[in-house]
């Protein structure tokens, strides 16, 4: 299981209209997609929700990494399908649950790839989330790539001492991760201490009223997106309650295992 799928959730600075949007409007959009995906169990509705995201992915120029995260999601998606199939749900419903998973994962992948953690922190500040929380969040996100490099270094260093991670019984393989986890944890702790020292030295927490030299402003595109999302969710709710959707009937009886 490679870690490549993480790239489908990592922010990169790109020049696209989506990247320039305010994080709050993107968050509203993602939440809208999330809510509608939770609403429906109809296969066609869920496919529509998934397909609707494709133009967004294309405009934001993140299609390659989005595909990668989708590919990695196949494993979990298949697992969801299997679990549902085994517990006696109808085949079509099992497919629907898998699709729902993909629709939601895709929405969040899109959000995190196009929103810088800094901007996210700023938007949290502007809606008056306590600074310590938003800072913790943005720092954690900022540290993910750093820690990934650390992890790779630790794996390299221990392999260079003869550690073989792909051999042996399951128990042995699990135990083999101790020489990986401990240095990682210790590294993380040391790094945190250094960061904390530096934070103290820059007066972190000095006053309750922190100023910010950059403030986020909502623009026309943002208002449009927010409006559009609210309308979309309203429309979806209407369709859910009032409009009979085409269904797919697959006359296969799945064996009940539970």
């Amino acid at each position, binding site marked *: 299981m490679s870690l490549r799928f993480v790239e489908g959730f990592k922010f990169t600075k790109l020049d696209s209209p989506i990247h320039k949007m305010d994080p709050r409007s993107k968050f509203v959009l993602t939440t809208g997609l999330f809510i509608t995906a939770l609403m429906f169990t109809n296969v066609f509705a869920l496919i529509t929700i998934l397909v609707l995201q494709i133009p967004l992915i294309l405009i934001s120029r993140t299609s390659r990494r989005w595909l990668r995260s989708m590919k990695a999601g196949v494993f979990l998606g298949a697992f969801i399908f299997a679990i549902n199939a085994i517990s006696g749900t109808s085949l079509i419903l099992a497919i629907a649950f898998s699709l729902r998973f993909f629709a939601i994962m895709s929405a969040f992948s899109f959000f995190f790839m196009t929103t810088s953690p800094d901007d996210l922190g700023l938007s949290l500040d502007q809606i008056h989330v306590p600074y310590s929380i938003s800072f913790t969040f943005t720092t954690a996100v900022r540290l993910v790539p750093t820690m990934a490099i650390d992890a790779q270094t630790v794996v390299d260093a221990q392999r260079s001492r003869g550690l073989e991670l792909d051999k042996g019984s399951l128990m042995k393989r699990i135990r083999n991760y101790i020489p990986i986890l401990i240095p990682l944890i210790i590294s993380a702790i040391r790094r945190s201490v250094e960061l904390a020292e530096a934070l103290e030295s*820059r007066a972190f927490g000095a006053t309750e009223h922190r100023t910010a030299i950059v403030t986020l402003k909502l623009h026309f595109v943002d208002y449009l997106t927010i409006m559009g999302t609210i309308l979309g969710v309203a429309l979806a709710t209407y369709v859910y309650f009032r409009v009979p959707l085409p269904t797919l009937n697959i006359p296969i009886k799945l064996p009940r295992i539970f």
Partner: protein
Amino acid sequence: MPAISARKLTFTYAGAGTPSMENISLSIEKGEFVILTGPSGCGKTTFCRCLNGLIPNFYSGELHGDLFVDEENVSDKSTAELSKHIGFVFQNPENQLFSLTVERDVAFGLENLGVPKEEAVTRVSWAMQSTGIEDLRNKAPYELSGGQQQRAAIAGVLAMKPNIIVLDEPTSFLDPKSAEEIVGVIARLNREYKITTILVEHRLDIVSRYANRVIIMDKGNVVLDGSPPQVYDEQARLIGIGLPKVTTLFHMLRRDGFPLTTNPITVEQASEQLSRVLQR
């Protein structure tokens, strides 16, 4: 009053048997450029941590003695309060950059202090110009080289307008060229803005030419204190200080009978003295 005044400063880390720093008494005047050096474990980092309150607020232990920084008694001040008087630049650039753009990183300390937006913006521009990173304003810290990252860290500290700056081995992770550049920036800031500078370093060959004073610590005590040519003598070498190679060469030549009177700290000084002796 001096910029820094320590009297019988002693500190033992919690859980340690012996003090890491004992009876340190010294004073540093405003505008001085001091190199603080010594073998690993000599207490130099401990001393620096006392200067901005990390000891005893962040590192617990027993602290005795008096310490005045920028005319303030540090004993009842937090690190955040002291950060307005004394700035600290750490060894690893990666762990002292907090934002995803250089501009916001340099502003970080000012934002924490609640400095009004307009003034903050001005100070940030000034700090970036003074450290030569104006053109990196919108770059992400991870896009920068080690030397550029350290400049950003220095700018972030400079923007807070402290009267004293302490730098703890800032060139450790830098290649020789970047190291020389960064020390040049530090020296220029000391000269232009009269910021009292304390530089903890092992790479004396690079930094000595800018300092007016070198303090050498060993086993928790100050053992040598004076101008670089005064201090870079045999005794320093015996403690295990990595003196500039030209200085060590002169020690050897003196023992061979060469009439060389002063300790050179730069290649130019060494060359000048040697050529006089050889061409007489």
